[in-house]
């Protein structure tokens, strides 16, 4: 059986790939943070109207420009590379991960528009790992609690997404996938042509996503060989959404939770069947 140390390291490794790619993508698009960019701090700071938020933002506002944020993303990449050499359980590993978490928190103040569920899952995992592995105070039990939290959040995310789709008439009618794939924002011409050629695939894909997402938490309780069905489905689902919809960061953020699901499944003293 995999130990929680290995599970934590595996989570961190998978997550790091996604965070590294994401940081490089931001560096490539750094002009969005310039004074005439979409996320110019001149405009974005208007979001913070409460007086009690001003002391927090004042020292950071000098960082929120093209050059400052480019430096932040480069530092983030260096932190990720350094984490390859230090396990999380070492003091240095924990410090590096804490700094990575800090950089994610700082950039989240200016990326209110443009961030997505993968960014939230990433920050959630990093904060949990930092909190649960504090050198000197973090206990093995706390590390396990952290893994439970990550696994349960992953299950919650799938179930909520599944239920929200089940209550939607468009999803139940089997038209939602076709409609999303036909947009230039999240779809593709090839996928649209495929679904036009095989209309039955629309209904299949909609119901497949609704059922599997809603029932996803069963992967915690079922015997491992059956639980694997959900994880293989999840892998395929995220790979296809990366391929067709360009949602590459979701793949890494959600795959990073799967070792926690494995851990929880193997902790269960009972199985449903």
């Amino acid at each position, binding site marked *: 059986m995999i130990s929680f140390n290995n599970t934590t390291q595996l989570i961190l490794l998978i997550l790091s790939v996604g965070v590294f790619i994401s940081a490089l993508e931001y560096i490539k698009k750094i002009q969005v943070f310039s004074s005439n960019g979409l996320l110019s701090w001149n405009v974005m700071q*208007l979001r913070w109207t409460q007086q009690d938020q001003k002391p927090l933002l004042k020292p950071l506002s000098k960082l929120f420009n093209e050059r400052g944020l480019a430096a932040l993303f480069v530092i983030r990449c260096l932190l990720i590379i350094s984490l390859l050499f230090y396990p999380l359980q070492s003091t240095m590993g924990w410090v590096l991960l804490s700094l990575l978490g800090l950089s994610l928190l700082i950039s989240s103040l200016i990326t209110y528009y443009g961030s997505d569920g993968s960014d939230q899952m990433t920050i959630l995992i990093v904060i949990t790992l930092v909190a649960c592995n504090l050198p000197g105070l973090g206990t093995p039990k706390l590390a396990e609690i952290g893994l439970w939290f990550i696994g349960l959040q992953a299950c919650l995310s799938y179930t909520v*997404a599944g239920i929200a789709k089940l209550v939607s008439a468009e999803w139940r009618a089997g038209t939602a996938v076709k409609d999303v794939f036909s947009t*230039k924002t999240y779809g593709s011409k090839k996928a649209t042509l495929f679904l036009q050629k095989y209309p039955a695939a629309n209904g299949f894909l909609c119901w497949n996503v609704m059922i599997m997402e809603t029932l996803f938490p069963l992967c915690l309780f079922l015997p491992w060989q059956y639980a694997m069905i959900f994880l293989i489905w999840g892998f395929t689902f995220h790979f296809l959404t990366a391929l067709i919809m*360009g949602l590459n960061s979701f793949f890494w953020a959600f795959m990073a939770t799967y070792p926690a699901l494995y851990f929880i499944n193997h902790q269960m003293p009972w199985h449903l069947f």
Partner: protein
Amino acid sequence: MMAKLDAAVIYETIVTVFLAFWFLITIVCQFRDSVLSNFFKHKVDIFGLIPLWTFFAPHPGKRDYHLLYRDKITEDNYSEWHEIDITEERSFWSWLWNPEKRDKKILSDVVQSLVTMIPTYRKEELGLNLLMFSMPYIIVLHAVSQRQKQSAEVSRQFMLAETSGYQKETDPALVLLSVFHQI
């Protein structure tokens, strides 16, 4: 030894309670229109730590949004409409490397916030004029105002339109037409 053990137990309890609270709040905030959800989302969660997991539901995004602008050069002289491309097609490698998604997602989020706000502002007494003070409107105005202009004295107007993507060859529909702004 005893003191260290106690500190570890206290720390463990604090972190466990924190994570349990975080998990519960995440569940509460999935009901996006509830009072508690609005409170945590808008007053407490400055770092965006409380996720909303309802991806592409209940209403899947089935429209492409288009942002266009034009200049008023003189009282009777207007430039052509220019489009700021938000929805260009992705490359083969987008499954792995997709930096384009960032500005597309920003504008898409901003436009969708604006689209969501329009009915609310229409109901209010001052109507759409108040929309000009909203964050998404200012971001869009800022984005279009940075584009090259023909002379220093022009005023600029933007338009948000929507289309149905690849599948339906329908004409674009107007979502919002701004007033002319001095830029």
